């Protein structure tokens, strides 16, 4: 494992060094992040001008959701999304051959090959928003909530990673799948709101079909002290099971690639 952390560090360092040459990108990313944040906050403002709770969530609690949304989104778009896009491109171009002939775990390697440094802005924005929400919530946050939050957040990121990985692996069979990660992104945006606001069928889909609920709502629940035993067990269970499924699927994909491609 330390070996892969080192590899990740090398990729991160090179990503930062190279991005520093293009300072305009920082400006664009700042604008993009704050536009996203403003949209979320304006939405909240409109809703709470009519009512002071949404599906049982108070304003400060919803702010926590906005924070988690930005944080998880930043973390996945920093490494996972760009790396998996590149992986799918590598399948299309045949350059995946180079990855598969390297003496390291190929799945790990394709998961960290491309870093979009500026997405760190989203991570920072998420942390700031969370901090504001925590201050507003004040006394209700104890060490237990903090620990649950961190566990649920790690589980959430693992779930999103595995889910995206499974989608990307499909490219072994269907080479042209450019849009699949974009489609996921638009479903992910449903996670801006607690999934309790959605009708039951959509709630079920966002929990089990596209596990956005586990990735965003559950960590926020941990923070605001609304987490149930069921939801944390579900999140942790899924965070254990989904990577195994992704691994199994990866093996099948690689076997297919080495069996059929010319």
């Amino acid at each position, binding site marked *: 494992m330390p070996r892969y952390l080192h590899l990740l560090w*090398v990729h991160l360092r*090179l990503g930062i060094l190279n991005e520093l040459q293009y300072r305009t990108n920082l400006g664009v990313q700042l604008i993009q992040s704050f536009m996203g944040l403003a949209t979320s906050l304006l939405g909240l403002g409109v809703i709470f001008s009519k009512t002071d709770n949404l599906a049982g969530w108070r304003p400060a609690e919803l702010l926590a959701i906005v924070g988690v949304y930005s944080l998880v989104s930043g973390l996945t778009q920093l490494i996972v999304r760009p790396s998996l896009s590149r992986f799918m491109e590598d399948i299309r171009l045949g*350059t995946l*051959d180079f990855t598969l*002939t*390297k*003496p390291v775990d190929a799945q790990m390697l394709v998961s960290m090959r491309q870093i979009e440094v500026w997405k760190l802005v989203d991570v920072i924005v998420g942390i700031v928003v969370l901090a504001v929400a925590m201050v507003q919530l004040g006394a209700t946050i104890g060490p237990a909530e903090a620990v649950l939050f961190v566990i649920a957040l790690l589980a959430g990121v693992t779930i999103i990673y595995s889910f995206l990985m499974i989608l990307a692996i499909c490219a072994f069979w269907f080479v042209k799948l450019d849009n699949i990660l974009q489609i996921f992104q638009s479903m992910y945006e449903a996670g801006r709101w607690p999934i309790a606001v959605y009708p039951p069928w959509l709630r079920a889909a966002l929990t089990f079909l596209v596990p956005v609920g586990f990735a965003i709502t559950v960590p926020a629940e941990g923070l605001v002290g609304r987490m149930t035993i069921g939801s944390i067990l579900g999140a942790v269970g899924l965070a254990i099971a989904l990577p195994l499924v992704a691994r199994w699927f990866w093996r099948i994909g690689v076997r297919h690639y080495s*069996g059929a*491609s*010319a």
Partner: protein
Amino acid sequence: MTSTLPDFAAPAIRVRDLRKSYMVPERESGLRASVRSLWNRQTREVVAVGGISFDVAPGEIVGFLGPNGAGKTTTLKMLSGLLYPTGGEATVLGHTPWQRGKAYLRQMTLVMGQRNQLVWDIPVSDSYELNRAIYRIPDAEYHETLAELRDLLDLGPLLTKPARNLSLGERMKCELGGALLHRPRVLFLDEPTLGLDVTAQRRIRAFIAEYAERHNATVLLTSHYMADVEALAARVIVIHHGTLLFDGVLAGLVARFSPHKLLTVDLEHPVAGLERYGEVVSIDDVRVTLRVPKGSAAAATARLLADLPVADLSVTDPPIDEVIDRVFSADEEPEVPASADEALVTTA
């Protein structure tokens, strides 16, 4: 592996009856056939490699020849662990390639002329840095190897540029450098000089020879350019339609597949009626090139010298390109039997 002692006689690459076939969907054209094929899919087996066997000794450079679709790349991909074979076996440095063991991958490298491994947007040295981390090359060894490669390939001014700003030849040099940082013992080079100009080709060839010599590396190289093979490989393996057609020294290939010799004659003045001595390949004023069957080259030479005002005469093998061309086009136009050629000359 039955013995833990190093076996000095063991080949670096050992291939036995290696086969690979693909199932490809077969579909008639037209909408109706396309729809029907959704549930009733017809497949057809295409044999890419149909049972080839050979050994390559450590430190040997072998040229792998064959027209497009002959199965060269498929074989290289099986040997570098990317493809599972349909049948047969292969070991490289004692490992079965397609098990993709880290111990094996650590010692080999794959270079494909038409695909880039360098990251497009970042400086070449950064791509090297990534390979260094992947192969866990110790600092001292890395700097030593990099210095050596920088000298041999003249990489100095290129390393700080992003790959996208390099010319094709420069990029290939950098690709090779990156692929050799971990000092592999086996090199699989698939068309390493594809699309390069003559100077760059020569440069790359000289480098490959030098590297193999210094590190006693085993090289299996495919190329369309016969000059590559002539310059580098004493031995060639020719495959065609997935089967092995020839395995031996380059000169032997000419002997085996070319039943002809070329007679180049400088005459003192132009002469007509040269067809009597052999097939006229070219006439350039007083310089004439004739193709004659190998067996009657001596007789034809004697008659030419006796009959004509010859200023100079040389007997050579036809260019290797031409020989190869004949081998590969053999099934498109049936070759004229050697005896018929012979008849042509004896009646002359």
